[in-house]
């Protein structure tokens, strides 16, 4: 029960009361990781260090001096966060074998609280993608593919082999983290969110995915994609758990000058009973082309839920929503062109054998190290930054960004507290269908409901809402005012309690797919 429950109320209490020991909890999670390897959620499993951390935690509990709620709690971290002594690959050949000499600030904060780091999770290469399908270690499989709920709704196949191709994607790019939390192998996981990369997989995997306000949580040690939009994301099985983790991670970091200097006070979420003072905005532009009728209905039902409970629910307009993806496309590729320039083979990461000149070595290294998606974005970004294009593309996109941010500001100024929108256009699609379109097309389609919040730097959260007709999770998104995470999470928690999203019923999977296991490694360090 401790394994399947929430962090805060079940697992943490169980540890404190001595009903389960940290080492036992750790062992069970590690065993579960092994038995769910076919999900390919983890790139590196840090078995030895995790057990050591669990032992230290156990000593603290025996002395009656746990560090806090997170002491002894197994967590996972997306593989684009630096972790000292543990390989950090960003799912790219460019960083295979790269062992970071330092911990990202958020990782350090979790470890300082006694959290047990189980391993690094899989993602799209350098977090570029919306499926967690484009990394060098292969795609991540959505645990719900193996749930009774999904299997019951699937058209029965004539032979069991065909079930192989039925599995659905996790969404991305933090798919590994979402899958890890969804399959109970950890209690919380770190993701990152630049265009929806935490909220999208959270929706598809039926977990809570929080994108904090830009500037609230340190990006130091998070390998950057778009410096002006990236944020660390939090994935948990409940809103309360997300609030706990947020409380430990938020706050100014001298090592990240884009973190605000305001004093951050961790908070406990009140149990909201009266929503009559709330004003919920429903942005009409989020009724995007391609939105499934199922999700549209669910969104409407959710709006009614608030209305019937006494909240003020009004339609609002964010007129520039349809341009956020184009705007993102330009700004993202431009920042990527700059951020990826550091990968030249000289100081770390892959280095080509080409030795004729510095430039040719760099070119060969990058040729060998980056996949098509990454290279494509670098080249596009450089195009938009050319002198003849700078004004027309990059500056233009920055102006459009302001228009998008202003749309939100106007709506929030008019008295709306929280926006309610869908998170994704549909439930998770089968992998075989997803790969029929290329990465950029997919990202453009899938990010449409999540990206604008990154443009404006606003906090947003996915709350698992219901199962689709195919038996897969569908989530809804709440977007809040800057730095008003407490209000956002309070409303999200109320909603979570109303919808009572079902627990996944994972079936025992007897499989021996060796190809998938090849990439799985157990890291052991002295």
């Amino acid at each position, binding site marked *: 029960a401790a394994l399947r429950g929430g962090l805060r109320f079940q697992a943490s209490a169980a540890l404190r009361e001595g009903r389960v020991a940290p080492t036992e909890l750790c062992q069970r999670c590690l065993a579960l990781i092994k038995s769910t390897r076919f999900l390919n959620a983890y790139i590196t499993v840090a078995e030895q260090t995790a057990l050591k951390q669990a032992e230290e935690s156990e000593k603290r509990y025996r002395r009656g001096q746990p560090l806090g709620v997170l002491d002894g709690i197994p967590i996972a971290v997306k593989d684009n966060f630096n972790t000292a002594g543990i390989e950090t690959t960003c799912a790219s050949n460019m960083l295979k074998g790269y*062992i970071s000499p330092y911990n990202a600030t958020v990782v350090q904060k979790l470890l300082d609280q006694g959290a047990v780091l189980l391993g690094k999770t899989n993602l799209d290469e350098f977090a570029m993608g919306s499926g967690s399908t484009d990394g060098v270690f292969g795609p991540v499989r959505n645990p719900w593919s193996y749930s009774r709920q999904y299997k019951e709704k699937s058209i029965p196949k004539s032979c069991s082999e065909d079930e192989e191709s039925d599995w659905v994607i996790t969404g991305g790019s933090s798919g590994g983290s979402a899958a890890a939390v969804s399959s109970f192998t950890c209690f919380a996981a770190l993701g990152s969110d630049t265009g929806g990369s935490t909220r999208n997989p959270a929706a598809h995997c039926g977990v809570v995915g929080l994108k904090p306000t830009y500037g609230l949580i340190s990006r130091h040690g998070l390998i950057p994609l778009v410096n002006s939009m990236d944020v660390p994301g939090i994935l948990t099985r409940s809103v309360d758990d997300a609030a706990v983790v947020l409380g430990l991670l938020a706050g100014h970091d001298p090592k990240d000058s884009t973190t605000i200097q305001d004093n951050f006070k961790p908070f406990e979420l009140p149990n909201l009973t009266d929503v009559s003072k709330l004003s919920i905005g429903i942005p009409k532009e989020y009724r995007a082309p391609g939105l499934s009728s199922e999700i549209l209905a669910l969104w409407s039902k959710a709006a009614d839920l608030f209305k019937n409970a006494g909240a003020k629910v009004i339609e609002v307009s964010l007129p520039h929503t349809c341009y956020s993806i184009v*705007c993102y496309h330009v700004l993202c590729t431009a920042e990527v062109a700059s951020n990826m320039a550091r990968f030249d083979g000289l100081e770390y990461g892959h280095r080509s054998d080409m030795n004729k000149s510095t430039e040719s070595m760099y070119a060969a290294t990058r040729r060998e190290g*980056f996949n098509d998606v990454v290279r494509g974005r670098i080249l596009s970004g450089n195009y938009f930054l050319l002198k003849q294009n700078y004004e027309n593309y990059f500056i233009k996109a920055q102006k459009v960004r302001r228009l998008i941010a202003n749309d939100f500001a106007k709506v929030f100024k008019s008295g709306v507290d929280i926006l309610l929108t869908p998170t994704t256009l549909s439930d998770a699609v089968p992998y075989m269908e997803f790969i029929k379109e290329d990465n950029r097309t997919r990202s453009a389609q899938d990010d449409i409901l999540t990206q604008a919040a990154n443009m404006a730097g606003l906090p947003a959260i996915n709350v698992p809402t219901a199962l689709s007709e195919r038996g897969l999770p569908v989530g809804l998104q709440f977007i809040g005012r800057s730095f008003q995470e407490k209000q956002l999470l309070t409303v999200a928690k109320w909603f979570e309690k109303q919808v009572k999203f079902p627990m996944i019923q994972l079936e025992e999977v007897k499989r021996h797919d060796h190809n998938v296991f090849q990439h799985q490694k157990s890291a052991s360090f002295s």
Partner: protein
Amino acid sequence: QNVTVEVLDHLEHLALVDFRDAEGVERLQKAIQFADQLHEVNTDGVEPMDSVLEDRCLYLREDDVTEGNCTGELLKNAREKVEEYFVAPPGNIPLPKLEERDTFLQGS
């Protein structure tokens, strides 16, 4: 309007990344086409936005050395090194011109 070979070549030099094949070039063409939608938006009188935190002051810390002395650690990750130096192949040698380079663009 297709992107000229000169610009493609220039991009390969700037990015030190190659287009690799026709698909790579096509990818760029599509990206530009996609981005052109931006021009539908009227941005007269709108200032470009660098950061959502533009109304705040960026944090600056005291100019004191608080950490460092980790040369050994940092050198661990480099493949080619000598004593405390990263070793690079000879510099100041530009990439060969398009005609002499092994690039897909050569055929264009």
